[in-house]
């Protein structure tokens, strides 16, 4: 609420914003008791589910089981929701190329329609997080300052302060968030892919998730005011730069300076 009231331009706007805020909070509390219900499940038709089932049996059942109940080589998908499928398949993480510490993003194997059908099938098994509505993905509607605060508390420790990525234990890592679509950022928060924790709507509300998306997209679009960012990796890349490029140029000058022209 703090930032909403600080954005006021007009005395009435403050009141309106406050009212809006109260309404939203109230609505959220109502929604929070039922964590991430799949309200959009009905959007899929029966044929979507059927086509999805076929695709599933052909491509996924080896690891996840014939009824998506899970096997030793893949977890159960019952209740993971459409968002999870849309994220995993839509970023190319699934189907997995080989077993490893974690599934990695790679060229997508299914087209949008097939991904939708797979999502429809998995969503039909049990309720779970749905693919987010477009209004929660519009970065122009969010507040980057609020998003930044949420991002720093909940995300920056793994993904770095501006989403450059970071290391986890034993070969796992938090990927860079550069170039990741709004929808996939949202879905990752809602479903907690791989070892990422789940940030359900009662922890980070859809508005808050949109603020996070706004923050990431704004920082990415802005670039750095100071010039090249050196990977946004912090002092390590800066130190490396000064020892290679910085000292390199200086040494070249010292050699020229002390040499004797012909």
């Amino acid at each position: 609420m703090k930032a909403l009231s600080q954005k006021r331009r007009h005395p009435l706007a403050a009141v309106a914003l406050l009212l809006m805020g109260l309404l939203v909070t109230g609505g959220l509390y109502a929604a929070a008791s039922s964590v991430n219900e799949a309200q959009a499940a009905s959007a899929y038709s029966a044929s979507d589910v059927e086509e999805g089932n076929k695709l599933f049996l052909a491509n996924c059942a080896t690891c996840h089981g014939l009824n998506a109940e899970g096997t030793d080589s893949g977890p159960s998908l019952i209740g993971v929701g459409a968002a999870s499928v849309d994220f995993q398949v839509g970023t190319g993480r699934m189907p997995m190329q080989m077993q490893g510490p974690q599934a990695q993003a790679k060229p997508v194997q299914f087209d949008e329609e097939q991904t939708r059908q797979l999502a429809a099938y998995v969503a039909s098994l049990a309720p779970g997080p749905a693919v987010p509505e477009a209004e929660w993905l519009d970065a122009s509607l969010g507040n980057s300052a609020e998003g930044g605060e949420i991002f720093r508390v909940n995300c920056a420790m793994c993904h770095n302060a501006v989403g450059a990525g970071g290391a986890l234990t034993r070969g796992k890592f938090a990927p860079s968030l550069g170039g990741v679509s709004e929808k996939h950022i949202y879905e990752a928060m809602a479903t907690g892919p791989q070892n990422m924790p789940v940030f359900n709507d009662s922890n980070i509300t859809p508005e808050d998730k949109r603020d996070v998306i706004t923050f990431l997209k704004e920082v990415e679009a802005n670039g750095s005011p100071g010039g090249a960012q050196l990977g946004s990796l912090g002092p390590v890349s800066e130190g490396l730069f000064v020892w290679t490029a910085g000292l390199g140029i200086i040494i070249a000058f010292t050699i020229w300076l002390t040499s004797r022209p012909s």
Partner: protein
Amino acid sequence: MSTPSHQYRPATRTGRIADFVDQRVGASGMVKEFGRKIFPDHWSFMFGEVALYTFVILLISGTFLTLFFDPSMAHTTYTGSYDPLKGVGMSVAYHTALDLSFDIRGGLFMRQLHHWSALLFVAAVSVHMLRVFFTGAFRKPRELNWVVGGVLLVLAMAAGFTGYSLPDDLLSGNGLRIIDGIIKAIPVVGTYVSAFMFGGEFPGTAIVGRLYMLHIMLIPALILLMVAVHLFMVVVHKHTQWAGPGRTEDNVVGFPVGPVYAAKAGGFFFIVYGVVGLISGFFTINPIWNYGPYDPSPVSAGTQPDWYIGWADGALRLMPGMLGDFSFDWIIPFPWGDNTLAMGVLVPALVLVGLLGAMFAWPWVERWVTKDDREHHLLDRPRNAPFRTGVGVAGVVFYCVLWAAASSDLIATHFHVALNDVTYWLRTLFFLGPILGFIVARRIALALQRKDREIVLHGREAGIIEMSPEGAFSERHEQIDDYKLYKLTSFESYEVLPPQADRAGHVSRSEKLRGKVSKFFFEDRVAPVTRAELEEARSHHGHHAVAAGSHEELGQ
């Protein structure tokens, strides 16, 4: 003044001004001392200048920054123009640091100029010290100046760290938190030192202001003082020089300060300024706006200190806290209750102190082993002091292992290896790396010395293949000229000095130890070519016959 013998009548305008000044402050002595003082010319002698010049740039840019920075930790709300932080609560210090970046024209440039020169400053000090070490320039009479240089290195790191902590952003705040953790680990007094430093509990509202005082007043003043002492001693000792024709222990060959050296060294200041300016214009450093205000709860992946503190951070990362179920938090029972020794933090701290201590002590260690009490003004080529080069490389490897450990997470993500494996490997290298470094560096130095002998005795490979009447192929060797010859042979090579008995005929234990170290260092050595060997080699005309004097250095 009624001096009857006032004979000197300045003829030029410069002369008249000089006369006026000299009669009042006596500057002619200084001009006579410095005006034509000789400085030898070599690129590797310029790093001290780089350090001095980046320090001047730091003073210039730092002064600008103080005009706008307010080191207060009072709480405020951001009202500047950087959109992703608008309305966020933060300290005044962070706010003004952001204002410098976004709302004061040229402020961002000055911040980047300041920070890049700081990184270059410590790097230049380090490279300068490495140059001095590997060439043996720290030997008598310059041991104390080596110590002053070491103090300057420590002060440079302190200046850097206090500056790093000022913006009060998330990165610097977490850095301070780590410092607080280290201070608390100090036995007996740690808890109180932490409370005194932070003005109460961490983070408090005092620390930035206190560090600011250290950063802009006390530490720069100490650095200036030490620089003055350092340069004074350089003047007293005169500069060292490389061995070579015409260069002896009793002279110094080079260019006079006026005009050549002053022009080169003076021009070099502007070059360094230009290079740092170019980097600051095009490369971001410490994007504080990315990190957000300090708050004890968040942290960013890749939280690292600036490079010169990296080795300390790496030491903290490498130390295991638990071995199986054995904890390095030692609980010591006393009659009044249990006390804790946080060895997981203290051991790395001792490693750092040990490495710095070894650096300060080295000139005396070498003097003790060699019993060499002469003055040295000619530099050693690193290959001609294989033991010292070996020790230096071992130290550098040790430092680099710690340094690499500070970026273990980035190594893991960028080379697609497991973070844990990186740590295990670096723990192994922590012990093996310096040993391997010593052996390899010394072998390489000895091999290069043998190659030098080969060139002196048999000439340089000319790249021309000749066929003998018998049909054998061989490469023609060309004799090197007398200057090159002298350069390659005019070095001294320490020999093993066995333990010596004192006057009473007794060999003390420390003397026995010295003898062992001497054997370890100097057992393998390559002697400089003597005139007899050279004459003998030159009298043999063919290349196939191995000259009698060289059989021993071929390493069979």
